[in-house]
């Protein structure tokens, strides 16, 4: 079971969190024209890297905040966690 550091609550067990996919995907702006290619990329296309991956998790059984987690998809090592308003480098 992973041990995830919520930037608001501290280290908590994985079972308090729910996974939310790739955190680097950016939704096209509302009320702005978007090409169907850009839209399809946003809705469907995801990379599935082996190694470092920045992903979203929600602390559903805690503060309910969505957070960013940089995790190795092969070893499950977590390098960094951040608020969604912060950047992970």
């Amino acid at each position, binding site marked *: 079971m992973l041990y995830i550091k919520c930037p608001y609550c501290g280290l908590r067990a994985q079972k308090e969190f729910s996974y939310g996919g790739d955190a680097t995907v950016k939704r096209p702006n509302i*009320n702005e024209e978007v090409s169907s290619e850009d*839209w399809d990329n946003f809705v469907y296309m995801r990379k599935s890297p082996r190694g470092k991956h920045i992903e979203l998790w929600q602390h559903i059984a805690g503060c309910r905040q969505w957070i960013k987690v940089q995790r190795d998809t092969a070893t*499950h090592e977590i390098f960094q966690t951040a608020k*969604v308003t912060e950047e992970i480098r």
Partner: protein
Amino acid sequence: MSQPFRLNKEGLINRNKKISFTFNGKKLFGYEGDTIASALIANGIHLVGRSFKYHRPRGFFGAGVEEPNAKLQVEFNGHSEPNVNATEMELVEGLSATSQNCWPSVNFDVGAINNFLKMFFPAGFYYKTFMWPKSFWYKIYEPFIRKAAGLGVASIEKDKERYEHKFEYCDLLVTGSGPSGLASAYAAAKNGAKVILAEDKPRFGGTLLTDDVSIDNLSGKDWAEKIITELKSMPNVTVKNRSQVFGYYDHNMLVMFERVSDHLEKKSKFTPRQRLWYIRAKETILSTGSIERPIVFGNNDTPGIFLSAAAKEYMKVYGVLVGKKPLIFTNNDSAYETALEFKKNNVEPIILDTREEHSSELIDEAKSKGIDIRFSHGVIVANGYKKVKSAKIGKLNKDKNSFEKIETVDCDCICVSGFWTPSVHLASQSGNKLKYEEKIDAFIPDKKKQHETSVGAANGSFTLEESLKHGFENGSNLSAKITETKTEISIPNVNEKKYGAHDKFWCMPLPKNENPKRFVDFQNDVSVSDIEIALREGYRSIEHVKRYTTLGMATDQGRTSNLNGLQLVSNIENKIVPEVGHTTFRPPFTPITIGTIVGREVGMEYMPTRKTPMHEWHEKNNAVFVDAGAWKRPRYYKLGSETLFEASKREAKNVRENVGICDVTTLGKIDIKGPDAAEFLNRVYTNAWMKLPVGKARYGLMLREDGIVMDDGTTTRISENHYHMTTTTAQAANVLSHLEYYLQIVWPELNVNVVSTTEQWAGAAIAGPKSRDMLSKLYPDLDVSNEALPFMSYKEAEFFGVPSRIFRISFSGELAYEINVKSDHGMFMWEKMMEVGKDFGNQPYGTEALSTLRIEMGHVAGPELDGRTIPSDVSLNGLVSKKKDFIGKNSLGREAFNVESRQKIVGLIPIDRKSSIPEGSHIVQDQNAKLPNPKLGHVSSSCWSVENNNPFSLAIMKDGKNMIGKKFFAVSPLKNKSIEVEVISSHYVDPEGKRVRS
């Protein structure tokens, strides 16, 4: 009542307390502190089971977790457990043990015929033989093979015992209380670290209990006791015996299995039987020690053949002799300690040492005590069927591939030692890639992947001095990093015997013209020849060899067989062991009970139960409940001997004719506040929200970004910046997360807060033509006329002195209202409604009637919004704004969503107006068409229309609207039904929606 093999004084058992038990029906006794194994051996019993495949007689081989043979069916404390390790299970009064895998008895086992047919049972025998005819496998071959092979029998009784889960955090977890573990725990504890020390056995100390050593002028055992006593007195230390750390998972989480009370005669009602610990450790010390490995020789599985350290443990810990005429067969010095222990107890052993004559501290001591030592000798084959009687021994030639001077010597036990294998299971589970250590012919941990450090024998250090030093150093350094305190500890003086080098010899050659089985893996009956066959047949990867031959599988996980198996493969393949590699170590290290894994999560505690505030009333009034997520909802209220069908028809009919009330508390409710709330709703829902006035409700539809309908519900504007959203019961949690996602990540600039208020409000729907009359009696001071409280409006008013919210919304399609009060007032509200409703013919209705009402109105719900439909599929395109943007809008333009023949919602009625159409039926043109019959759609919801008194269904059908008036078949192979149906509009009742506005 005498125990012929019990020594007079030796051992750590309590001779003042006799414990009686039975074995295969025979009454026996042992002492407190005995295991089943030690008590049986004391009574001279060695034959305890039959082997897996050949049904060969088997006895004890080890003295603990390494035991491959002695698995018994044990009954105690009122339950029966299979595959209990006799060498681990402590004796309790009244325990009854029986042998497994034998019929009619362990002494006379019919299955043993397999042993004489063994040439017909090579590796892969089952795969090769029972191939044909194919249909025989499930019905004949497999059940028969399963009956013939296999271990114990699981109980079919309900397990009445209590099992617990515990979560724990510590700075340092130490797994094993041998010398290196004790030293690590002690050093870390002195640095102020929070330490957990786990020991699998009942007694602490590991090898200190059996080895002839001294530390700081104390015997090993006394030193261990001193350290443990001190550790137990420290508040920052938890010391646990009978606790096996069996799994090493991600992020330094370890799982431990504690046998809390199986050894107790009496326990309190609340004492669990076993406990599962989830331990999150900052650092882990793996002091799991090592396990002796056997030397392979002919008939080496005969009862009476033991690992040499086990024989010593039986003497030193239990005061039991495994035999009175022992042969010690070894390739190293450690077995000499066993020989000396025999000698000390006035038993004359013969040592067969595969090494050439040489000298070492132990060899010299054995010689000086007059022990018969034969160098360059080995056991060729053991004689005796149910117990070893003698052994054919011989002198090995220089190359050790043949022997001379063959003779037979009488013996009643053979104690074998092929050197030591570090227990690297936990290290390997943690992700540590092991490395092969030539010096000890075994794998040891390599680079760390997690915060784990192996010390002592688990790391390949086989001297006490080194183990203690590593233990103290690592315990101190690892904990100092955490506590930032370092207490100096002087490493104690050690007195131990120095071992000479071992012989890299592990398997005796076969004698000429004889072919006795030489077992590598006892538990699975895998012999040298089986592995040879596997390689001959082309299996190369050690993982494949393992699966084909079953080497190293089953409950003992190959603890005594893995390395010998690897040696054999590498010899045949002309490789070195590290090239062959090792198989994967997986948790659990030892078998654990299903009860422990499950813990308290059984029966009612399997998952949380959500009950509405009116639950008790429903119960008292014969509600039959249905699960809606974790909620319990009344499905129908049973009157007399009514069936579900009759009751739901009655309830629905009453709503159409009079008035009914329904508990709608379970609907998801989300409170939305903030100056940008309207803008937010406008983006979340497909329809327009900017102009909804205060005091009005609106039906809304939300999509996923891919255009699929996610949820629907009504949202009401309570005040300028305050909205009350409802969701379906099933989607409540998902919708909240969805809203939070957009507010926190996508549009953080919107000033809006959302919070779930599902539990804060109790809700009741009042539906039916008489609902307004009833409402006027519930709110005598309120104008409830159609003008004052029109469809989709909202009012706040006191409900008999209690604040309440009135929503004029309808799911049933009838004139209807929903009343919300604070949860605490829910029961009050419900009872008042029942009281006042009497005059109007009010009856409560459940989810089944609720479904009937919405289906015949053509209102969609979960079965239609199934994650595959877009708004136009379910006739909700009127709610999709063309003017504004919203979540999922861009996807609605996709080509596939806009083809003319796309699936659409329709209604179905059976031609005979009688046959109910099963939900899930496929709609086909021709019921007799050749398979696969083209599917035109499926039936999503079915009911008995109370309005028209015939069955009615909703279906999602290709080219739906254009099919109206046509006839098809609804086919359900599951129900074995085929019903001719006519396609009609999905709005079967009141298509104009007059009633809700009346």
